């Protein structure tokens, strides 16, 4: 069956991030003046307001900051998945990412669980950065 869930909609600023995902690379913005990794995208560092930055590849490691099980159906394409596990992962580089947890029974999920990125090629053109136990 064709993938029917909502797909990301990159814009000019975030296209390199989504291109990176297709190459199974998790790119973060790195702002040298504050030695700060930032996610999600912003054109300005929230630490020192610098606008000078570069893309850097994340090691893709982190821990579960918090998580939930989604039971409510907001979009029909999720019907077969419900309930599914959503999480916020704190990357070792600092930023937090909203994501899905995969390859883990829900009984094992807990705050502080070590996880690593799992690139899910949901279509030929789109890869999503999900996380699984490290």
């Amino acid at each position: 069956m064709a993938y029917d869930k909502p797909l990301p909609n990159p814009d000019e600023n975030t296209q390199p991030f989504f291109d990176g995902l297709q190459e199974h690379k998790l790119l973060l913005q790195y702002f040298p003046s504050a030695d700060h990794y930032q996610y999600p995208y912003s054109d300005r560092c929230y630490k020192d307001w610098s606008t000078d930055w570069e893309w850097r590849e994340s090691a893709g490691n982190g821990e579960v900051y918090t998580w939930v099980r989604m039971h409510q159906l907001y979009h029909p394409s999720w019907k077969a998945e419900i309930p599914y596990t959503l999480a916020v992962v704190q990357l070792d580089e600092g930023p937090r990412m909203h994501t899905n947890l995969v390859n883990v029974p829900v009984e094992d999920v807990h705050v502080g669980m070590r996880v690593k990125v799992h690139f899910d090629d949901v279509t030929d053109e789109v890869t999503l950065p999900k996380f699984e136990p490290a």
Partner: protein
Amino acid sequence: MSDPIRGQTAICGLGITEMGKVYGHDASWFAGESIRLAVEDAGLQKDDIDGLLVNPGITGMMGTGISIPLQGYLGLRNLRLLNHMNSFGATASAMVQYAAFAVHHGMANYVACIFSDAPLQQGGSAGAAYGGAGRRGPTGMASLMPAFGFYGANTSYALAARRYMERYGVTNNDLGRVSVTQRRYAVDNPHATMRQPLTLEDYHNSRWIVEPFHLLDCCLVSNGAVCTIVTTAERARDLKSSPAYVWGMGQGHPGNFPHAEVEVGTTSGATIAGETAYKMAGVGPEDVDICEFYDCYTYTVLRTIEDYGLAKPGDAIGLYPEDPADPEAELPAINTGGGQLSSYYMWGMTPISEGVIQARGSGGDRQIEKNDIVLCSGNGGTLDTHGTLILSPNAN
């Protein structure tokens, strides 16, 4: 040591419209009803109103909310204060604060602060009203949220709640104790939408929305409006209804959820806002008689109690009886009208409106006897914004 402004201003008029699934009217209509009721409650005339502050609720994001044109709709002339304000759930307290400073310094005499919302459509669900609003077609990284299946405020708060619950060993049964407690109060509140008593079993049997939240952890969505009229203590004394004097005011806004520097789930803006308001009022947590706390979710109440210093971190649930449905159980004086969970969801005006009622002593069967210090909170975003009002029946 209090601030000289303590007790110098007051809420002198309160208007609460019919609440809930009230169809066939837009947000302007509800706003008009609320100011009409508030002016009548205060014993004022329409032309006495010389300040108008508005907060449009979720319909503001849907493009049908109240804003500056409300002045024209209400036919208010020659206002001396006018603004559309929005810091989400903290706005109601921010409006009263701005109004209080304005009347204290002579910028206006009677400022009407209105929250009005009408997101519910006949045949539509409450979740659709909130989950879809303003979230159509995100681009860039924001578009990853629906791609992962994140939708709505329920999810954001459930994420915060989970972290709190795992950190302190708070259980779903504990959240249920908050829900059942507030429903008991709502039974005695004629303004409340949900007045059927609840048991813990009902709580556990209510469907999951986003685990750890059951349906009965989540606030209502309501059509309706609340208007409060703010004036000086001197003017308020001679009016028709008892004033709720403003003793303390504060705000606290911790910042953005995704930033790693913000501890989500175990802190909120109440800490900063509360310290500011306590200092202005010259009181502390030990002096608080009644709490009216923003309760978008059961969890939010526990978090707020702790951040105002009324319990140690993780201990707020200790203020609640094991089984609040037991008629013998003594309820804490927290959200005494049923709150947003059971009475009506008017963002920050829910706690303030019940705070005014309790400070006046007009709570009927749900009135708390000792009401000298009433602490009201507003909270917006995902614990991002916070406002505090301390009200009292006493001018000093």
